[in-house]
């Protein structure tokens, strides 16, 4: 590798564009397009009795109104179930527009097309839909009780029952010296990207083709879905993901109803149509995640080693299952984390409710699994009076035990085999970073000042880079520009930078010459999508493989030009030369000219290339058999199975003895994603992930009332943390390369979010000496916990933990909130 860019903290090349308002997001496109708006169900469960559109007809600028009856053939069929699974015996999906019954608030019922969005909303407001309300099923307990059904033909509201097991967990638990049994709860949250969904379609009647822009994480699959629904060949549908303002999982679902309806109407009307989801729609019509109840039984020995673990996971998947049961599959497998569990059984019961669909959100079931496992580790440690970190260490898979087969089936349908890792070292590093061993002195010093602090830790393993494949295409043009494309999409992760780093390193070209395109089916037609922390692993390796092909071809052609053995050549700063000797060289732009026997002299490069008289013998065809004109190459990377990243997080929190407010004083992350392509980008991913994790731990939940109304469908009441709520994040890295891929890398996109709830729960429990079994934890919830614990000593985990507790004059984080008291510099936040 000539140019040292791989592994360097190269600044994100997309930032100049994105941070100065020059990004082009979905709503920046199609300025003159008609606008679509949707009449959505105000009921969680109801029968549609009548739709009266007459009131809308006199709205000036109205173009069209559609209900389900208007949708022809495949356009009106139920949306596809993307990922079937044998355990998903009762999978159900919705219609693009509701047919007869609505099953959650926000389900689309009528589509309106008008001259602009204002008028479309005016018209939508005048459409009268008559509903006959049906009983709504809200909450996991009600779903399980099944007094009412979400789907008449799904008994017990049970979509799937999935069992994963190794050994006889029940027997192992019964035979263990110590046993514990408890229930854990995690609330719903959501991806909530700052840009919602959006679709913009234009039909070319002359060409019989469709161009669709979608704010999606999977443009190639959106294309295939639209082509199938509209009866078009793939080649007549182009789907482009423009700049996308965050996805975090929610935009991997496809096709959304709007992704079918907008292109369909655009073709029907032969007009450009755009739909831009607004915030209120996003809360009730996109997707949520996380909500689970977990019943845990664990048996362990005197050292805290787990001998048997049995978890029953009740998973709320909402009204439909378009994305299958990936989330609980991930929960039930990734729950094991870095540990060797004697015998394990997980039973997932995936339940329908009359709430919004549940599909992957960054972490995709892992935060729940890690919460379960790490809460269990803490319970074991408290029960035995052992150090919480030591109990984890006692259960770790050791570095010499890789590859380690957990004996389960992972989300990709492949065996759950960890490829590499060093969990003891992760824990050692995070203990050092947070100051675990000196914390008791810190706690006592704080207590003397009336402050109550606690420390927590969490370790996790994340399967990343799931298959089946991604591809990359690399072309060097006659100006020496390197065009890299891959089919998966970008939502701001820094792909333009890291893919360019990989290409620059592989080809030996300056990074400024590399141009990256993602998520555009015009450039690359085969792709899976951006999810499961897979972009760097999958497309990164595919691009590297494509680059290696191009490099080989470049060396071959240059070898002919330089009359040298290609094996003696290398590429430096975009020029091919004999290794160690740059006196004779040929630039890649010239090699690109030479690669094409058709040499119309359009430019200086072509003229310059004539000095390299590479001619083939007159008896041979100008393009040799098996060769192709042009300096380009295509590569695919398809792994046998996922690669497993890991990390350890630790936090110190402070709780206010009086107000029950919770503040994160320090947050430490040690992360291992194999070889780092760009440590700055990885840290950025971790920071963003931790921020979302803090949301899940302390702020975010979806508050449905008993009738299925979402009470906090706005950023005023859905409490995504601000910068002021996110602590400074201290990071350290460990690099255990993956043996599974050429670059030795593992995924990093979701890492930050995964253990945060577990870590904060651990730390608050430690500060308070009170058992934490549910997240998120608000001041109100902590106050209630204190009140309950005052009457129930069983909730106490450690008597000595309590400190402070009376008087207004605590000198802590929170008293500083009294603005009269302190100058701004001393004020906490």
């Amino acid at each position, binding site marked *: 590798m000539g140019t040292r860019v791989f592994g360097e903290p190269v600044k994100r090349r997309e930032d100049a564009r994105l941070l100065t308002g020059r990004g082009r997001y979905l709503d920046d496109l199609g300025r003159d397009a008609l606008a679509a708006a949707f009449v959505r169900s105000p009921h969680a469960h109801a029968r549609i009795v009548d739709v009266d559109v007459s009131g809308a007809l006199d709205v000036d600028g109205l173009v069209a109104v559609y209900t389900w009856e208007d949708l022809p053939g495949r356009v009106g069929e139920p949306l596809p179930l993307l990922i079937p699974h044998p355990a998903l015996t009762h999978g159900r999906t919705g219609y693009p527009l509701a047919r007869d019954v609505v099953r959650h608030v926000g389900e689309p019922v009528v589509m309106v097309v008008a001259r602009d969005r204002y008028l479309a909303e005016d018209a939508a407001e005048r459409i009268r839909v008559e509903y006959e309300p049906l009983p709504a099923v809200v909450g996991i307990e009600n779903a399980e009780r099944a007094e009412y059904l979400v789907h008449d033909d799904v008994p017990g509201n049970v979509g799937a029952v999935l069992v994963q097991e190794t050994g006889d967990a029940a027997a192992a638990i019964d035979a263990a010296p110590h046993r514990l049994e408890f229930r854990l709860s995690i609330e719903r949250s959501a991806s909530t990207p700052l840009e919602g969904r959006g679709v913009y379609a234009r039909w070319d009647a002359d060409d019989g083709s469709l161009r669709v822009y979608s704010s999606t994480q999977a443009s190639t699959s959106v294309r295939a879905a639209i082509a199938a629904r509209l009866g078009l060949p793939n080649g007549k549908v182009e789907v482009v993901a423009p700049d996308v303002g965050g996805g975090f999982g929610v935009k991997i679902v496809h096709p959304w109803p709007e992704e079918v309806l907008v292109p369909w109407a655009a073709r029907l009307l032969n007009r450009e149509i755009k739909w831009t989801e607004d915030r209120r729609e996003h809360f009730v019509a996109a997707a949520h995640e996380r909500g689970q109840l977990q019943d845990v039984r664990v048996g362990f020995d005197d050292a805290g080693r787990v001998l048997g673990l049995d978890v029953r996971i009740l998973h709320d998947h909402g009204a439909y299952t378009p994305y299958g049961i990936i989330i609980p599959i991930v929960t039930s497998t990734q729950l094991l984390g870095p540990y060797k569990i004697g015998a394990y059984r997980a039973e997932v019961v995936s339940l329908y409710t009359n709430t919004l669909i549940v599909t992957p959100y960054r972490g995709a079931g892992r935060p729940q699994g890690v919460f379960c496992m790490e809460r269990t580790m803490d319970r074991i440690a408290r029960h035995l009076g052992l150090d919480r970190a030591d109990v984890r260490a006692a259960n770790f898979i050791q570095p010499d035990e890789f590859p380690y087969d957990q004996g389960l089936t992972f989300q990709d349908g492949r065996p759950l085999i960890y490829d590499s890792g060093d969990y003891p070292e992760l824990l050692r590093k995070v203990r050092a970073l947070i100051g675990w061993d000196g914390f008791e002195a810190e706690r006592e010093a704080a207590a003397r000042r009336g402050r109550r602090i606690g420390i927590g830790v969490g370790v996790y393993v994340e399967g990343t880079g799931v298959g089946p494949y991604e591809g990359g295409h690399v072309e060097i043009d006659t100006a020496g520009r390197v065009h890299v494309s891959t089919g998966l999409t970008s939502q701001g992760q820094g792909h333009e930078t890291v893919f360019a780093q990989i290409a620059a390193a592989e080809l030996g070209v300056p990074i400024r010459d590399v141009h990256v395109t993602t998520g555009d089916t015009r450039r690359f037609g085969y792709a899976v999508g951006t999810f499961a922390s897979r972009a760097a692993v999958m497309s990164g390796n595919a691009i590297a493989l494509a680059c290696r092909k191009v490099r080989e071809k470049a060396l071959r052609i240059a070898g002919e030009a330089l009359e040298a053995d290609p094996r003696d050549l290398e590429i430096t700063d975009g020029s091919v030369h004999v290794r160690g000797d740059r006196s004779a060289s040929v630039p890649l732009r010239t090699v690109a000219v030479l690669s094409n026997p058709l040499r119309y002299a359009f430019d200086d490069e072509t003229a310059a290339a004539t000095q390299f008289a590479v001619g083939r013998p007159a008896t041979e065809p100008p393009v040799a058999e098996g060769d192709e004109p042009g300096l380009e190459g295509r590569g695919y990377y398809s792994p046998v199975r996922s690669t497993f990243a890991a990390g350890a997080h630790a936090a110190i929190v402070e709780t206010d003895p009086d107000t029950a407010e919770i503040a994160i004083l320090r947050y430490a992350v040690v992360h291992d994603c194999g070889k780092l392509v760009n440590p700055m980008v990885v840290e950025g991913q971790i920071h963003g992930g931790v921020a979302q994790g803090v949301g899940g731990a302390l702020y975010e939940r979806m508050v449905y009332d008993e009738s299925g109304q979402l009470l906090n469908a706005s950023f005023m009441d859905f409490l995504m943390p601000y910068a002021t709520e996110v602590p400074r994040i201290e990071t350290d890295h460990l690099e255990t390369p993956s043996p599974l891929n050429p670059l030795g890398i593992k995924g990093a996109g979701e890492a930050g979010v995964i253990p945060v709830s577990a870590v904060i729960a651990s730390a608050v429990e430690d500060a308070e000496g009170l058992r934490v079994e549910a997240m998120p934890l608000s001041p109100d919830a902590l106050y209630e916990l204190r009140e309950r614990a005052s009457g129930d000593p069983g909730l106490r985990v450690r008597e000595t933990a309590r400190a402070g507790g009376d008087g207004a004059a605590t000198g802590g984080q929170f008293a500083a909130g009294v*603005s009269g008291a302190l100058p701004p510099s001393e004020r906490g936040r």
Partner: protein
Amino acid sequence: MKPPPFRHHAPRTVDEALGMLADAPRAKVLAGGQSLIPLLNMRLAAPPDLVDINGVAELDTVHCGDEGVRVGALARHARVERSVEAAAVQPLLGRALRHVAHPVIRNRGTVVGSLAHADPAAELPAVLAVLGGTVEAASARGRRTIPAADFFTGPLESALAPGELAVAAFFPAAPPRTGTAFTETARRHGDYALSGVAAVVTLDEDLRVGAARAGYLGIAPAPLVLDLAEAAGPHGDWPAAAAYVRERIDPEPDIHASARYRRHLTGVLTERALATAAAEALRRARD
């Protein structure tokens, strides 16, 4: 989230604005728009007319005198928050303003607009109420001064009549030997508070508690002012005052906090705010 149709009026003077309001009695006044525009976008409000006073330069005023601070209807939160003169006359105003949402909102939102919106969870109504301030209202029929105690009539309801424009608010100056404090607990920095307290403590010449009042936000349908001098006693028994407050209030639960927690929290904040205000009063008395 696009507003329904409305007519936009852009007066240049107060008289023009009052004329427009007289002609369109269902009109809403648009100043900073930080509450009104979201309500329009979510179609929770659909006024046929908006009288946009952003071009009425004569309302963009902050006057600080010995008597107090008079804030014109177009003065932004940020201007008042940063006013050294206003802080010298009545420091409570700036202290509370730092808790109003976020800087970008304070750059646009107006003090008088927040009062006229009369959100019981907002900071400024509680401040105006605890200070015994006033709102100056004008209409085509004339002008009147409305005491805070009469101005806030319910959640999002004020004593402003149709056709009336709140042109200014007056925050009285702090008397001698007086300290103030503002504290609140919000779920996130800048959110509406779960509970908040604006406290004013005045010491007598013997440095005993002469007056102690607290204005509350977030726990009642309108800003609540309690006289705590008796409960606290001459020596400032703040826990006793907090206990008294917990008995007197009846907060509502919502999705962010239970009534029980709010009651508890309000006591804690009362104690802290009174102690801080009293400490400041003592410093000032000794200066």
